[in-house]
């Protein structure tokens, strides 16, 4: 174990030194961001608490619903963790710069495996764990759980984190060996698609829509049976649910058995991974060092399209845009994400096509418009996630080549706006595709179609403004792979800001539209004060949108200009 601990020390010491060398301003900044995260954390807690209290109020099936929800929460975590572990392990096991040094030292492979296992688990789990805690604490509060529950939760969660890490690392090791040398990046493509499909299939296995539609069951008994049946008895999310639920709902159950199931699986995966690493890891790593053959896409269509779309920009902006677009289409790790995007859009639209709106007890017209608003928020969330992957790392993607920008006669402002415009058009196309098609499937009124198309159109400007601006405020020019960027601290700040922005826009628009609809339904005309409030809401939407574009961009320009040293 001594060697393993030694292998982990560079990371630990680096972290300590980073904390220690922080000046007053950085400490203040960290505290402020911590407060922001706490607010977000409390938001999750309140949200989950309210949902659980509502579920508890439903007779007979209340407890079953909370159980199913907990299982879904665990499944979501498990899926995110699995994907995150695969991505992280590619970096920690195969792409990290320090691997040359480590492999040239007389360290047994098993020790390297264990050290990297711990690193991977911590790197991929800390954020999911942090934002998952309020969910579990909310469960504890709703069920007035004793201290034992929280203690037990901490014990159960550890093997639950180890399992996706073990699986993810094994998957990575196998894939790196199957694919030709130095094609590890291409694996991202496959992994992205596989992950989405697995996630989606797992989610569908839970049949979540049936929970809100008891009428599809022939009898209440069938509904109850469906709720009671564990939908995935062989998955760790079910074991974790069963390990902690008895402490909440005060039934006997077998929490220790399920905990042992988690623990033994986790430990078994470590052992299997260790065994596999002795056969697969060194070969895979060695292969990934071999030279890479360059290929250039010969498509003239893309060239022409780029020239066409950039013709009105200044020579400098144009040069940067052309460079970024060409780099994107020649980098497998970048363009392969487009497949992921396509899968995302298909799944998104499919979900709207299967919504059983006509069978709902709520009037369809009302429900369609309500869902249309939720759709706006959801589309905003999807766009934020896409922007987190593409727009947010745009500045950091310059990497060590940033010296070229730093020494050229281009302003930081001009540089950032070029990044803004490069990302704007593709995201606008995505945004409008999602919102128009989903609204079409929902058969919403023309008014709602127009309102949501326009809202999402302008919201995209705001989301990109926030992404580029915050991305420039937290640049990481030495990041090893861009996939890590979205999960960085800056990435979390961006996601929180973006969520707040989308939430504000949707709330500010939902209220006036609801008022207008209600006045039509009740045939009561709106008075002057209501009209003023409605227009004020829309005015506020406009102001927030403008602020979302210009304020983060301005902060980004300021932060980047203030940098002591460029790479």
């Amino acid at each position, binding site marked *: 174990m001594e060697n393993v601990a030694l292998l982990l020390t560079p990371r630990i010491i680096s972290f300590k030194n980073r904390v220690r060398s922080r000046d007053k301003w950085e400490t203040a900044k960290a505290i402020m961001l911590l407060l922001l995260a706490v607010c977000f954390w409390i938001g999750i807690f309140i949200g989950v608490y309210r949902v659980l209290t509502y579920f508890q109020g439903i007779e007979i099936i209340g407890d079953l619903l909370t159980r199913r929800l907990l299982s879904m929460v665990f499944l979501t975590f498990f899926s995110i963790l699995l994907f995150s572990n695969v991505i992280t392990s590619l970096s920690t096991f195969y792409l990290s710069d320090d691997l040359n040094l480590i492999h040239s030292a007389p360290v047994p492979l098993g020790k390297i495996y264990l050290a990297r296992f711990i690193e991977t688990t911590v790197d991929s789990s800390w954020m999911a764990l942090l934002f998952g805690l309020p969910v579990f604490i909310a469960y504890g509060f709703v069920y007035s759980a004793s201290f034992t529950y929280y203690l037990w939760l901490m014990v159960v969660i550890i093997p639950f984190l180890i399992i996706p890490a073990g699986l993810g690392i094994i998957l990575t090791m196998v894939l790196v060996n199957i694919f030709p040398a130095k094609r590890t990046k291409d694996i991202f493509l496959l992994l992205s698609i596989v992950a989405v499909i697995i996630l989606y299939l797992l989610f569908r296995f839970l049949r979540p829509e049936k929970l809100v539609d008891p009428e599809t069951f022939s009898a209440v008994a069938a509904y109850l049976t469906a709720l009671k049946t564990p939908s995935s008895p062989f998955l760790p999310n079910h074991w974790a649910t069963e390990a902690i639920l008895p402490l909440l709902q005060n039934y006997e159950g077998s929490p220790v058995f399920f905990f042992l199931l988690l623990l033994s699986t986790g430990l078994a995966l470590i052992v299997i991974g260790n065994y596999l690493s002795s056969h697969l890891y060194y070969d895979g790593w060695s292969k990934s060092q071999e030279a*890479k053959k*360059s*290929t*250039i896409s010969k498509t003239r269509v893309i060239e022409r399209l780029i020239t066409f779309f950039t013709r009105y920009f*200044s*020579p*400098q902006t*144009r*040069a*940067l845009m*052309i*460079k970024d677009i*060409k*780099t994107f289409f*020649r*980098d497998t790790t970048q363009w392969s994400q487009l497949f992921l995007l396509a899968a995302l859009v298909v799944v998104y639209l499919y979900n709207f096509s299967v919504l059983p709106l006509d069978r709902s007890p709520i009037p369809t017209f009302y429900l369609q418009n309500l869902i249309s608003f939720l759709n706006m928020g959801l589309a905003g969330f999807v766009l934020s996630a896409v922007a987190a992957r593409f727009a947010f790392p745009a500045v950091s993607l310059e*990497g*060590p*080549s940033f*010296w*070229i*920008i*730093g*020494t*050229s*006669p*281009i*302003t930081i402002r001009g540089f950032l706006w070029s990044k803004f415009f490069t990302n704007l058009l593709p995201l606008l196309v995505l945004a409008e595709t999602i919102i128009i098609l989903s609204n079409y499937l929902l058969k919403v009124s023309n008014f709602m179609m127009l309102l949501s198309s326009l809202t999402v159109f302008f919201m995209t400007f705001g989301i990109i403004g926030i992404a580029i601006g915050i991305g420039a405020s937290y640049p990481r020019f030495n990041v090893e792979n861009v996939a890590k960027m979205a999960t960085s601290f800056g990435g979390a700040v961006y996601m929180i800001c973006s969520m707040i922005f989308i939430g504000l826009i949707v709330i500010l628009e939902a209220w006036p539209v609801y008022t207008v609809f209600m006045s039509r339904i009740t045939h009561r005309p709106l008075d002057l004060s209501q009209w003023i409030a409605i227009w004020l809401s829309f005015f506020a939407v406009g102001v927030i949108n403008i602020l979302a574009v210009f304020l983060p961009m301005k902060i980004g320009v300021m932060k980047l200009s203030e940098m*002591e*040293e*460029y*790479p």
Partner: protein
Amino acid sequence: MIQLIDLTKKYSKVKAIDGINLEIKPGEIFGFLGPNGAGKTTTIKIMAGLLKPTSGRVIIDGNDIAKNPLEAKKVVGFIPDRPFLYGKLTGKEFLRFMAGLYSIDTNSHESKISELLGLFELTEWGDELIEGYSHGMQQRLVMSSALIHNPKVIIVDEPMVGLDPKGARLVKEIFKAISSKGTTIFMSTHTLEIAEEMCDRIAIIQEGKVIALGTMDELRKKVDSAKDQGLESVFLALTETLAQPAESFEEVP
């Protein structure tokens, strides 16, 4: 053409460079020498606009790099010691990109690009991705990109790193040719033969201070060195025995 006035850079309490004053004339090839950690790259990075000084000024062609960075950068071609480039662009595309950053007319840059690729013997590699270039080829590409806008000043950090003997000779010839046409070249180097062969004047810095400045003959005189003695012995004598404040030399401004 280039003025460094009381240039100082502190990292926490350590002074990386300490009150450097230099003036370099148009068309001069100026060598900037010093042992490891003397402050050469720090000075160069400040001159190129990549690092902010703690105090002092850098004036290039009459423009203060801190107050008027864009005007100053327009006349500078910068060549770093480690050429990190955009691997997914071809050599030609990279030069087109650089031409765009310096707002060079699209019609005129194609002929300039061909000329530069030819000059640096990269013509047959022009349509290949940069990630496939060797270190030396990348270095030559950076040099050609630094010349794309016909700069008045070239700032170069370790020009010969990664170049084979043929490449090194090529670069020397090009630098001499452009300096004879009036371009000022400020180069930091460890390769003393290059400095001796190419530079009109040389400054030696140690612990962030200029400890000697002048032509080769003037530097030799400082250490009472024989006329046939090379820069290496002069350099070693200066850095080992003259590690004292710059004020002791009248030549140092």
